[in-house]
């Protein structure tokens, strides 16, 4: 840590945080001094959100120390952090839609009570909105559900800067401009500069590198749960940030062995254009292709997959699908597994029409199908009649693959299916995909892990619900994907 005269507002020292086998933070040193705006950037899963949650007291670190104003915090909590002057604007909105703007302000200020509280809360938030977004048209008496998403974000940001009882020293802004138009975003960033000039501090998390380069005093780049680089803003430019985020070393050899000759163009299976696409770009997938959907999480990849899935049954504008479709869900607990059923039943549900014998499901065919896939992708179980929850997470995910691949679908949509799956399972599934693609199946694969793009014939990069890049197999590099994901073009 750099020596400073006053102790930093917050200082993290060797902080570690693990979620099961996933190491979200691996010994992070991070501090914020008074009067500076720190830009925090990194790709999906680099550990930014975890770091912020630890700062805000929402997550307790497994190891390491947190100090506020130079005082080490033994029991760091949300309310404790608030009392010490730290506020967070989280990415998902945390307003109550059924309450008015003034009432939502009251929620963050226990001291707004007694006679006339509503008037005082309305004054407080209206003044702050006037200060940050001059010319705004938000009425403090209006219910939040009646506001557009952009105005909600304005209220949320303004609320974080209101002061009653507790001091305010540091505001964490997580993608604060994601729902704002260019004008209001500029107003907010100008306010942040004024705020910092007055001796307060800010952490700015954004995927718009231009925004960070222009407004931060110092930039911290995170990668794989570690601080990859931290320096004054002058030391970076757009390209060097991209290079640090992606790692300077060359590409791993993971994909090299899997290089296979590009097949000549075969029948087109899918053609889809995202709803918000302004230019002519569209996603095209042919028979036997593995097509990757990349970009930052939540930028429209899942939406497009679900739209394609719907389009298989009923017509949707802009999407053509001409073969049966199956979907492998990413969140297997909520969208994939039937927790009360056996492994065989979980596999067979995708192919009921073929397993029927008269009006009933033939238990024998169902078991045969499950056993076939058990051998084929090595589902580790004694008996396919066991409950599906007796399997480990990775093997449950294999069951979902077996369900999709065991069906007659020719197009398989995969919604980031490898989340939280161990390396061994991943390797087995990659081999399986390659086999099945060789047999003519088409895969559309949304993944947040850059390594997995090595297995794709072509990659579409998404940003704000639109396709911003279409990379052929030999063009796919980590740097290019990150470059497109973080591009500043509006």
């Amino acid at each position, binding site marked *: 840590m750099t020596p400073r005269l006053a102790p930093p507002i917050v200082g993290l020292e060797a902080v570690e945080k693990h979620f099961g086998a996933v190491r979200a933070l691996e010994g992070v040193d991070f501090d914020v001094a008074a009067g500076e705006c720190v830009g925090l950037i990194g790709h999906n899963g680099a550990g930014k959100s975890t770091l912020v949650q630890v700062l805000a007291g929402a997550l307790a670190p497994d190891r390491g120390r947190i100090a506020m104003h130079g005082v080490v915090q033994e029991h760091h909590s949300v309310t404790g952090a608030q009392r010490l002057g730290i506020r967070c604007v989280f990415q998902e909105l*945390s307003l109550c839609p059924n309450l008015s703007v003034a009432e939502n302000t009251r929620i963050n200020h226990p001291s707004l009570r007694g006679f006339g509280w509503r008037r005082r809360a309305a004054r407080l938030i209206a003044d702050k909105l006037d200060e940050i977004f001059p010319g705004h048209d938000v009425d403090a008496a209006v219910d939040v559900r009646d506001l557009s998403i952009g105005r909600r974000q304005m209220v949320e940001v303004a609320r974080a800067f209101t002061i009653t009882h507790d001091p305010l020293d540091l505001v964490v802004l997580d993608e604060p401009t994601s729902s704002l138009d260019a004008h209001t975003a500029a107003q907010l960033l100008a306010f942040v500069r004024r705020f910092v000039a007055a001796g307060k501090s800010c952490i700015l998390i954004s995927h718009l590198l231009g925004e960070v380069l222009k407004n931060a005093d110092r930039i911290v780049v995170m990668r794989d749960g570690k601080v990859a680089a931290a320096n004054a803003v002058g030391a970076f430019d757009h390209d060097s940030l991209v290079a640090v985020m992606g790692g300077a070393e060359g590409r791993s050899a993971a994909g090299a062995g899997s290089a296979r000759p590009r097949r000549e163009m075969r029948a087109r299976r899918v053609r889809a254009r995202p709803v918000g696409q302004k230019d002519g770009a569209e996603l095209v997938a042919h028979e036997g292709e593995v097509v990757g959907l990349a970009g930052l999480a939540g930028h429209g990849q899942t939406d497009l997959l679900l739209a394609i899935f719907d389009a298989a049954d009923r017509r949707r504008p802009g999407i053509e699908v001409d073969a049966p479709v199956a979907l492998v869900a990413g969140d297997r607990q909520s969208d994939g597994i039937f927790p009360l059923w056996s492994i065989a039943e979980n596999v067979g549900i995708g192919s009921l029409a073929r397993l029927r014998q008269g009006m009933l499901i033939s238990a024998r065919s169902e078991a045969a199908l499950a056993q076939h896939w058990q051998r084929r992708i090595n589902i580790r179980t004694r008996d396919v009649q066991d409950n599906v929850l007796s399997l480990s997470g990775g093997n449950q995910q294999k069951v979902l693959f077996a369900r999709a691949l065991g069906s007659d679908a020719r197009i398989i949509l995969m919604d980031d299916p490898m989340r939280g799956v161990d390396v061994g399972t991943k390797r087995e599934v990659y081999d399986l995909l390659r086999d099945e693609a060789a047999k003519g199946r088409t895969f559309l694969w949304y993944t947040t892990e850059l390594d997995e793009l090595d297995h794709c014939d072509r990659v579409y990069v998404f940003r704000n619900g639109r396709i911003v890049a279409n990379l052929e197999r030999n063009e796919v590099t980590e740097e290019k994907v990150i470059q497109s994901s973080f591009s500043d073009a509006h």
Partner: protein
Amino acid sequence: MPVTSARKPAQGATARARLIRAWLPTLSLALVLAAIAWLNPRAISYFGFSLMLNLAIPIVLATIAQLFVISGNELDLSIGSFVSFVGCVTATWLNDAPWLGIATLLAAVCVYAALGALIYLRNLPSIVVTLGMSFVWQGLAILMLPTPGGKAPAWLQGFAAFSFPFVPLPIVAALAIGAIVHFGLMQTSYGAILRGSGGNPAALARAGWSLLKTKVVLFALAGFFGVLSGMALISITTSADANIGSGYTLLAIAGVILGGGEFVGGRVSPFGAVVGALTMALAASPLLTFMKIPPDWQVAANGAILIVVLAARALVSRRED
């Protein structure tokens, strides 16, 4: 970057739908009243209203009890049998041994508060817990009063006999109840927190509020208004039986929803609920009697009216979205 708001043209239609929605409770009440006036003009009089709305106040109070529970995204399926139980306590112990009666009713409110805590701490579905409790209350009511009987305390009967000039007592009482609850839930600073616990519990917890406390407070208020409902009912009927409040569960839920409330999201309206309860009270019996529907069919007709009104509500709210 996405545009802040590209929904200008849709906003006029949304505002109109919202206006219809806000006036729907009043509109349905007016419709029911118009039907009654058409069937039997003489019913629209001071005496007629006093008679028709005779049993409305207990329904209004039970509806308010349900409103508190629904504010916190829960549902109370036991309010009907709870009202029966309170009725039996009122007609027996509260008359014979007032202190024992008062203690029992206070304990009943505490049980409600404890149920709120249980539902929050164990993360149980309120529907299951309150369905179970409905049998407990019903059983206790039967134990207290195996056969219909008992007697309302004289002071309680005095309340029911009170009358205002020009405006019938039930209407004054309903407006007063609506005003008090509106102030408490919609105007006070803690009322905003209570409603927020239904709107976005995670945000509330993040801001440092105790969700356990909000749940306990909401259920305790439900219990309190349930007690008031039972006592108001006995003040009118003067004696009790163990099934006296059956049917209130459904009427109370319907009243809240008819009054503009939502099952989830902390969206409720006390005045709307009062109007909804009055509508249900009128549609439940006077209207059907005037329509010469035999008593055997009245429950079914009741259900049909409920479905029609709620379908209209659903139609309006869909337009709004």
